[in-house]
């Protein structure tokens, strides 16, 4: 199986879907000859031209709304929002249009659009270019949210998102773009709405997504190697809806749960996962649930300050020990 970069996996998914379906168009800033701020659309303008790639001025809310309108008439727009922080600028069209139209118009319209956006800190990008704002999205009914943690997921989920009849936000990650991984070739997809058991174990479950999945896998490997403790890692993959079946099955097996995310801790995905498990798996729990996330602070620019705010591997290790030793 070929190993490709996460960013290349995104690029391949876009390329293949543009080739497969003439209704697929791309909308976003600097997605043309420049190839997108993180290279996701590299080479596509040369191949598909301005008819398929609508390179926009810096107008996030309105070009997202243009995507909604085009989707209502049967196109499948893939909108790129250059940094997840700028999702804030487009929230009106995401929340009040994309996520509601199918329902509020009595099922008369579908909004088959995708919003791709990179979240996460990458070392020094600072307060307005580093956030993981998944908490803003999962509380809005009508939008699916997925957060691929590997090149294979980046490709397989994006292709499914483009083919889905609903608005899907694909949360990519800046630190994952330059990571390589095996990606099957040929036309294949991964299902939306499904979590993945990324590593099997029996003594504790770590639920994580996006950039925290590889971090937690490494932590789990270290526990296995150093202490003979086998930790199960559930990669949530889908944040809205959450795959509670996979999650609950793992917690019922291990009896202990740590939830890790790059986003701020308050009111986010980890909080929701913890609440659901507490509600539904109390009988299986042998220890309180622990959450690990960024501190509830803006993400500062200087590297040493950034590290102080973001989750570090040792934070996950500490949480795992706390839950294991309870």
């Amino acid at each position, binding site marked *: 199986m070929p190993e490709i970069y996460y960013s290349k996996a995104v690029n391949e998914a876009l390329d293949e879907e543009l080739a497969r379906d003439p209704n697929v168009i791309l909308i976003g800033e600097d997605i043309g000859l420049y190839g997108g701020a993180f290279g996701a659309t590299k080479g596509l303008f040369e191949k598909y031209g301005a008819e398929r790639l609508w390179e926009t001025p810096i107008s996030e809310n309105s070009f997202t*709304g243009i995507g*909604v*309108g085009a989707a209502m008439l049967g*196109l499948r727009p893939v909108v790129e929002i250059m940094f997840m922080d700028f999702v804030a600028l487009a929230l009106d069209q995401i929340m009040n249009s994309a996520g509601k139209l199918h329902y509020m118009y009595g099922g008369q319209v*579908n909004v088959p659009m995708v919003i791709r956006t990179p979240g996460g800190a990458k070392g020094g990008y600072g307060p307005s270019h580093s956030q993981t704002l998944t908490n803003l999205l999962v509380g809005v009914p009508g939008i699916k949210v997925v957060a691929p943690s590997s090149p294979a997921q980046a490709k397989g989920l994006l292709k499914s998102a483009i083919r889905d009849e609903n608005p899907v936000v694909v949360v990519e990650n800046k630190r994952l773009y330059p990571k390589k991984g095996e990606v099957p070739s040929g036309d294949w997809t991964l299902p939306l709405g499904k979590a993945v058991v990324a590593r099997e174990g029996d003594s504790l479950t770590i639920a994580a997504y996006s950039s925290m999945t590889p971090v937690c896998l490494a932590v789990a490997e270290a526990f296995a190697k150093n202490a003979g403790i086998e930790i199960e890692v559930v990669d949530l993959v889908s944040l809205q809806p959450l795959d509670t079946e996979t999650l609950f099955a793992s917690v019922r097996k291990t009896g202990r749960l740590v939830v890790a995310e790059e986003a701020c801790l308050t009111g986010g995905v980890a909080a929701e996962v913890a609440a659901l498990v507490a509600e539904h798996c109390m009988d299986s729990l042998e220890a309180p649930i622990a959450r690990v996330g960024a501190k509830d602070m803006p993400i500062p620019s200087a590297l040493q300050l950034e590290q102080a705010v973001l989750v570090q591997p040792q934070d996950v290790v500490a949480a795992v020990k706390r839950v294991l030793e309870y």
Partner: protein
Amino acid sequence: MNQLDNTTLLGMLQRMVLIRAFEENLMGLFDKGLLGGTSHYCIGQEATAVGVIDAASPKDWLVSNHRGHGHLLARGLDPARVLGELMGRLNGYCLGRGGSQHLCAMDLHFLGTNGVTGGGIPIAAGAALACKYKKTGEISIVFFGDGASNQGTFHETLNMASNWKLPVLFVCENNLYAMSTPTSHAVASGTIAPRAAAYNMRGTVADGLDVEAVYFTAKECIDRVRAGNGPELLELMTYRQCGHSKHDARVYRTREEEADMAKRDPILTAATRLAERGVPQTDIDAAQQAAHDEIAHATEVALAAPKGGETEALSDLFA
């Protein structure tokens, strides 16, 4: 000035009266506790809806706003189903989920009223993008008020639509007040049409209280937009005779101003003009009566329709 034939103008008068009667009827239904929430009436503004929509092709896509009853009925939506929607009945276009501000009829190419001021403007441009991409020959038309022209979506979308020569007509119904805020306090350029120049598109002003003037001006704009010359901005000067919504004491304007503007009522103007052109008063009266009868019948149909329940509330989140 261009002149419509009497039959056409009489038909337009009838539809303006239909819109007026629909809204006056709502007031009674509110009083009886048969309607919830609020409603934004377009009483006095009927000519903009009827004039523009009649100038368009029935296949052109419409996007409306919170004050959308006129646009809905001008396009030919069934008044009984519009009223049913407002009353939460199952005969409503959106099963009672949308109500007045979120009402859509895809089979009539009506992309929806929209409760977020300015929210429909980019959606209309997106529809125009799809028309251009698919080469359907259709255009999109979006109605919004002077208030929405201060939203970022107005400026962002006009800019993009012009860059991309999208077939969209931006129709600003300038009724002089954004809720209570007069344009003199809120619109730096005084009126809206001059803003078109900043986006390298044609901006036209017309008398929005005269349905014939609206029709002929809109027709010219629509023809140019359809020919692929890019988007245009049409500003229609109009006047909302009623308050912004159900409860509005209209403290921000004088009763004298209202009385002056009532003399320019678009229904009155059209009826007078028809009489001047020799249409018998009995025909004019009959057209108006037919509109009232249609609303009375629609009300009976809507009241008889069953109400939705948990099934409608809890389904269709995803396609």
